[in-house]
């Protein structure tokens, strides 16, 4: 199994100045809060050194029966010489305010930075998502949706650690350590230096532990990814496993993965198992040093008992900041990897965008013209070759052709999802590349072969985000495509929830909702990619009815799979292998006995029979399809 199991698994260096500067620029809008947090954490770090010092004073001034040493500085003047009063003053006048202030500073700092972290995440997600909305269609062809989603979500989440607990906290650990060391040195530089001998040991142990744990966590992550991949794959392909009597073998394979997961974890348990006792031992070592040397100094009278006790407490406060500091390495490393991916996406140019000086479209008529258009998704493989046709306002044009003839591509080009290599596409006589994208596209409404529904309500699926569409218009659109009865039969009506791409709706209902959506947007030109999948007879008649409502008095370009649509079209375009091969009415094309004739035999002829049998009752009320048929 290769090590680079996941693309996302690859971690590089922990610091990259260029990336870091760019990342930090996201903090700029919140610089006041960050500044505030820095100040808070500075004082927090200083306060960390205070409680042991107060203890020292209590012991030296009041408790130690032998020395009772005078306090050399201002505290000596402030505190009462009476022990009981002095201790109370020390406790409530100094200790209590210190811990309260510590509480406030720590709380405020954490809160502030976490909130800033959230804001930055929010900004980043918004920026990435907006950028994706502007990227051209070919980007979407090249990149799987899952990867783009990861950029917007998981990669951004990784950065949260950096902003929320990395950038500022790193100073906090630093200040804490510094102030503790400073106070210790000032109390007794000799004993301090002796005590500091454990510091390199702590750093060493922590470093070795981090390294071991990082290594086993890397193995754990790989093992987990493999367990998940295995489960995903074998649950999906379970019947293959069973059909091929592969249960035993597959299980053995799983057992190996499961074992490597367990073993990697046991290594991490080993690391923790050694680390915690080692740290505790070092803590006790520091105490032992203080007791032996400090005690010795105390016996000689060069150190007070209080100082020795304070040293014991200080020495136990080394560990947290040192461990935290080594944590930051991992945070930085992941943040660099994620931000690199994010910035790469943000730096991808948008490709197709509005022209610099867009031509205005005053009152669009809906005339479409293809002039010798050629197009390849990827050179040199042309999927559209020298295609020319026009659609006059009010016309319904049907495009037919065998699978892979380039029908859907025509509609994508018209909407300028892609830019063509040769020829021109004109809308109302204007080259579409000279129009603002929005001005161009708002003249069209598209119904895709596989009607795409968003989660939301039925109404929101008809209206989409176009807020100018009123409830009445939504209702009217639903009525025209024969959807109203169905919607009104739902408990919530138009507000009925649509879940997971319309899982609870039938194919026909989804198609009709897509029709209503197109109609509600009242386009100049309707683009319709009819569904090919065989649907049951009931659905077939539903759609047929809906379609009639949809096409009334409208310019339309239809990729047609239904005989009724083709027969009522003003013009039929026959595409074959990227070329426009035939054009004319149903009767004309049939008479030519060319490609259309064959397609007709293959794909549409059956519908004649089917439509008669299925829609027979409806036909009496409405003779239109029959009169149009040959």
């Amino acid at each position: 199994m290769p090590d680079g199991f996941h693309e996302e698994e690859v971690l590089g260096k922990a610091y990259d100045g260029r990336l870091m500067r760019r990342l930090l620029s996201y903090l700029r809008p919140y610089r006041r809060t960050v500044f505030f947090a820095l100040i808070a954490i500075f004082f927090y770090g200083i306060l960390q050194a205070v409680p042991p010092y107060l203890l020292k004073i209590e012991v030296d001034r009041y408790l130690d029966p032998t020395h009772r040493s005078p306090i050399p500085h201002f505290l000596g003047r402030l505190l009462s010489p009476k022990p009981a009063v002095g201790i109370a003053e020390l406790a409530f006048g100094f200790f209590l305010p210190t811990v309260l202030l510590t509480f406030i500073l720590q709380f405020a700092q954490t809160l502030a930075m976490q909130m800033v972290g959230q804001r930055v995440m929010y900004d980043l997600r918004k920026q990435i998502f907006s950028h994706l909305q502007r990227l051209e269609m070919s980007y979407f062809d090249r990149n799987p949706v899952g990867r783009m989603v990861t950029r917007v979500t998981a990669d951004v989440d990784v950065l949260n650690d950096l902003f929320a607990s990395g950038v500022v906290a790193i100073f906090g650990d630093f200040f804490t350590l510094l102030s503790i060391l400073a106070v210790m040195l000032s109390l007794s530089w000799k004993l301090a230096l002796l005590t500091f001998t454990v510091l390199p040991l702590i750093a060493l142990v922590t470093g070795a532990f981090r390294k071991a744990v990082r290594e086993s966590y890397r193995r754990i992550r790989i093992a987990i990814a493999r367990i998940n991949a295995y489960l995903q794959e074998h649950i999906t392909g379970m019947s293959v496993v069973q059909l091929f009597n592969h249960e035993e073998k597959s299980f053995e394979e799983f057992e190996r993965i499961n074992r490597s997961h367990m073993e990697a974890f046991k290594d991490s348990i080993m690391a923790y198992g050694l680390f915690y006792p080692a740290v505790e031992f070092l803590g006790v070592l520091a105490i032992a040093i203080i007791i032996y040397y400090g005690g010795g100094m105390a016996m000689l009278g060069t150190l007070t008992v209080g100082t020795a006790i304070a040293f014991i407490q200080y020495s136990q406060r080394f560990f947290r900041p040192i461990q935290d500091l080594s944590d930051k390495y991992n945070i930085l490393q992941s943040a660099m990897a994620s931000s690199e991916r994010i910035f790469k996406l943000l730096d991808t140019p948008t490709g197709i965008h509005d022209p610099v000086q867009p031509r205005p479209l005053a009152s669009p008529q809906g005339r479409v013209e293809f002039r010798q258009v050629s197009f390849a998704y990827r050179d040199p493989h042309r999927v559209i070759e020298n295609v020319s046709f026009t659609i006059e306002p009010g016309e319904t044009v049907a495009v037919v052709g065998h699978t892979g003839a380039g029908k859907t591509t025509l509609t994508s080009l018209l909407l300028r999802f892609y830019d063509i290599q040769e020829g021109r596409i004109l809308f109302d006589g204007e080259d579409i590349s000279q129009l603002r994208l929005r001005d161009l596209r708002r003249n069209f409404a598209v119904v895709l072969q596989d009607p795409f529904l968003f989660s939301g309500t039925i109404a929101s699926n008809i209206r989409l985000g176009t807020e100018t569409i009123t409830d009445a218009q939504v209702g009217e659109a639903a009525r025209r495509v024969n959807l109203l009865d169905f919607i009104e039969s739902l408990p919530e009506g138009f507000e009925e929830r649509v879940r997971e791409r319309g899982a609870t709706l039938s194919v026909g209902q989804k198609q009709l909702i897509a029709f209503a959506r197109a109609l509600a947007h009242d386009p100049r030109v309707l683009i319709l990619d009819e569904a090919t999948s065989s649907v049951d007879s009931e659905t077939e008649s539903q759609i047929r009815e809906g379609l009639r409502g949809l096409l009334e008095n409208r310019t339309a370009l239809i990729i047609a799979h239904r005989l009724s649509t083709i027969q009522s079209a003003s013009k039929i375009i026959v595409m074959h292998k990227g070329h426009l091969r035939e054009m004319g009415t149903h009767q004309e094309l049939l008479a030519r006995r060319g490609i259309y004739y064959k397609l007709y035999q293959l794909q549409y002829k059956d519908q004649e029979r089917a439509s008669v049998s299925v829609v027979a009752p409806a036909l009496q009320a409405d003779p239109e399809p029959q009169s149009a048929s040959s």
Partner: protein
Amino acid sequence: MLKRLRPLFPYLTRYKKRYVVGLAALVITQLVGVTIPLIVKDAIDILSENGTRERLLFYAGLLLAVALTKGIFQYAMRWILIGISRDVEYDLRNDLVRHLMRLEPRYYTENRTGDLMSKMTNDLSAVRNMVGPGIMYSANTLVMGVATVALMVHIDPRLTLLCLLPLPIASLAVKFFGQKIHAQFEKVQALHSELVERARESLAGVRVVRAFCQEDAEIASFDRMNQSYVDSNRQLIWIQSFLWPALALLFAISFLLIMVAGGRDVLRGEISVGSFTAFNIYLMYLIWPIIALGWVTNIVQRGLASLGRLWTIFRAEPQIDDHAARPEILPTLRGEIEFRHLNFSYNGKLILKDINLHIPAGRTVAIVGATGSGKSTFVSLIPRLYDAPPGAILIDGVSIRQIPLATLRRHIGFVSQEPFLFSETVKNNIRFGAPEAGEAEVVRAAEISNIVAEIQSFPKGFDTMVGERGLTLSGGQKQRVTISRAVLRDPRILILDDALSSVDTDTEERILNQLTGILAGRTAILISHRISTIRNADEIVVLDQGTIVEQGSHEELLALGGYYAELYNKQLIEEALEKEA
């Protein structure tokens, strides 16, 4: 609670001895550990009593010896007690997978993959947390709490009571806020999933979005969810930012009480300065167990809930198994298949109606019919992916329920409609059902499905990885690998369910030619829409809405002028169209 834990007992009792050793190590660790403050106490006390440097050295040495002993047992405790939980997790996960392997396809259509995955990962890890850290930290808190408090009481009962006063609040706070954090975290996670889903949906529906100029509306809608996700996170942040500083404050208050009351006791001569110092250290030692107390109750609660969910998998009994098998009847299969009045319903819907068909061993039968006519269901009943009524399907005159599943399936080469390959090398995929097959046989199987040349053109030939972690094969290539996979098993019965649909006609022709050689003497069932695949079959069966409507040879069915004849005509036109430039 014990009742809810019962399913786990077999997994825990397996490690009884290690639990005993681990717990013993835990007790020793803590009992040794609590002496450290006592030593410090004595050391401090001799400072005021004119002790000697030798005494100090003794105390320092004693401290290190005690710490070393404690460390050794502490290591053993963690290694054993947490280690067991990883073993239990390993055992459980193995058993779950073994169980899943016995469950039939129907189970997998009724249970979503995502749900199963989440049980196998999240719930399992919650259970593990309960049996590992859960047990260790509760025992730890108990032993250490009792020992520490006992020693503190011994030194100064009143001071003990006083300074421990704020600490139950800490335990309760951890428990209470822990729950809140967990609940809020679930909310945050749910919103995160929604956000991910929103992004996914918007990007997957990019054509609709662009066509209807909805980019700005999409951005606005994403923005709303982005905002509510942030808002929900904020509530979590409030709790989290508050909890730790607040706990620190609570402990600080305990220290403050020692400072005041302990100081007074020293002044009154009730305790020594050393005892006063020891109290401070004991309190420091108590911080983690007190926090763990609240934490552990939450771990156990979550673990129990997860245990319940996890066990839903074990409770699902395999419906297709060997309970009626009589291995002695039929040691090996010839391949004669008979369907007797076969009716089959799925979810209350009758899919196959009164099918009677006899396929003598060695014959090739083709099945055609429209989508939804029941063809795939029909063939999936033969290897018992789904169970037909008893006695409705017989092989070599024996009801397939009496043939052990392993025997039955070993003799069937099944190629399903959707080619499914594993993320493995091409070679391992081909010999999936015949692991003992050698290199030459694999190549031979690949030759039959006409894919050798393509495989050899891959970067690592037959050792090229395919699937998610390797090369993406085209639909046609996948289909041909799955054919090789089935052929390599040297099956008595070969079933191809529309297995050549993504292969072009020329290749199909070649594969079929190769197959005819292989098929000699074997029973074959081919489902296809292509006449070229079907026409040479010994018998052709047309299914319509679950019943056989036409049956006979190619010529007979053409003469009949029904569904088959029409399929044939269409094929001719299709070929003509294909030839158009």
